[in-house]
């Protein structure tokens, strides 16, 4: 429907429509679906996101590889009982991100958004902003649609796979989607939506994917937690009027280039980074993974 993001933004501005609304129209025309069907599907997605982002907040879990499982509860208890450094709101979001990552690593149900490894960021954003701003479900659904458009652009022009682009392609994409959705839900302009998405990608451009023992556990979980921080900061900067001098499409192209230049050992193969530290190798060996 649009060749590039500039056209997308122009169309939104000319027709006085939000990125979320135009995303809905595109989705309806793509598969000849009604708004009701799309919203019903989004609600199913939202339900799973709600469960996964809350399940780990008050219980100890144990992941398949045993590397993670209690982090969400620890952070949530710390947030509630102590004067934290980064503040109550942002920590509540981070705890929710950790929760979904844990649920994923424990073979629970999650929504790949855009991937399983980065599944914590979108739900953490949605259910923290919802508590803070008392947003309607419809506002949330339009924000999700906007995030979908951002993810589609990245998936098309670059990659959302850690094996192809490193963690920047997974947690970076998720943070960009969440940042853009935040701006859209809070009534920011279409260009602000994409400035926010650009900031989020730029903030972690070059981030490698180096899963310890090859498992989707650590450091995936803490990168989901920092991913939701990244989304909030990026959205705030865009809403404050800060602009990215590099347009979103070019940021994505650059991220793709960085992903291509990244050595294979740093792209989900567990042959570099944290995976090949002394401790990382020991963990792998102790788990009996070859």
């Amino acid at each position: 429907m649009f060749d590039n993001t500039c056209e997308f933004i122009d169309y939104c501005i000319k027709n006085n429509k939000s990125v979320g609304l135009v995303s809905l129209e595109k989705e309806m025309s793509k598969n000849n679906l009604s708004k009701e069907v799309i919203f019903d599907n989004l609600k199913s997605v939202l339900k799973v996101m709600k469960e996964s982002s809350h399940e780990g907040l008050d219980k100890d879990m144990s992941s398949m590889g045993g590397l993670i499982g209690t982090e969400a509860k620890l952070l949530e208890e710390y947030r509630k009982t102590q004067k934290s450094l980064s503040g109550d709101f942002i920590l509540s979001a981070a705890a929710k991100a950790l929760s979904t990552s844990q649920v994923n690593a424990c073979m629970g149900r999650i929504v790949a958004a855009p991937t399983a490894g980065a599944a914590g960021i979108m739900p953490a954003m949605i259910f923290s902003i919802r508590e803070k701003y008392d947003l309607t479900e419809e506002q949330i659904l339009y924000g999700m649609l906007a995030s979908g458009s951002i993810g589609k652009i990245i998936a098309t022009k670059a990659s959302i796979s850690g094996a192809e682009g490193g963690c920047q392609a997974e947690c970076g994409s998720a943070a960009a989607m969440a940042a853009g959705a935040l701006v859209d839900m809070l009534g920011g302009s279409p260009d602000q939506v994409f400035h926010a998405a650009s900031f989020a990608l730029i903030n972690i451009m070059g981030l490698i994917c180096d899963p310890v023992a090859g498992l989707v556990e650590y450091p995936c979980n803490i990168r989901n937690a920092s991913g939701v921080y990244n989304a909030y900061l990026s959205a705030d900067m865009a809403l404050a009027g800060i602009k990215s001098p590099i347009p979103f499409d070019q940021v994505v192209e650059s991220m793709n280039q960085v992903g291509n230049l990244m050595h294979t050992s740093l792209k989900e193969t567990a042959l570099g980074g944290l995976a090949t530290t002394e401790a990382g190798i020991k963990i792998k060996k102790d788990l009996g993974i070859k």
Partner: protein
Amino acid sequence: MKEYGIFDILGPIMVGPSSSHTAGANRIGNMSRIIMGRPFKKVKFYLHGSFAKTSVGHGTDKALLAGVMGLRPDDERLPSSFELAKKAGIQFEFIEKDLGYQHPNTAKVEFHLEDNTIFYVIGSSVGGGNILITNINGTEVEFSGNNPTILIRNKDTKGVIAHISTVLSIAEVNIATMSVVRKDNIATMVIEIDSYIDENLIEKINTSEDIVYIAGINPIEG
């Protein structure tokens, strides 16, 4: 270039931890079960490459077994598939094996039937939960199951393809792709179509005496 939809990005809903090693593995199991289409008493999974190396940490084994029992990638019972299989009296075994295939995430699913015959399917998990079925009982095939797929084995004689395409045409079914492989006087046909397959359509195709096997495979959601 693939045109993504919103739910390719916000989805799928799946049991973790990995779209390739868990959801994709489950789809291979499910697809194998549908292709085989009969009750079985025992199933052996031969795990190749990365599937062999990181199976336990990704629940690949549990996902495969859940698949052959018909549990979908988003079914929360997936982690307890070992217990479910034991309850159902299904024997299962996982064997690390170099299958000599290129894709690192590959499994061979070998069913042992009541009459002691063996039926096997080989599939690879190629990323994002997508799979490719590459071999059925020694016949090389290639299909993803992302589209409704009709799988047919027939005696390699004249008129079978004409019969099938006539039935599809009358039913107003549009063929997306079609491929035929011949081996030992048997032709294996993979037909991908644009609309969902119902039993009625399969029965109509199956009226030809030259057809020795047929299965209709709709996409595995979740």
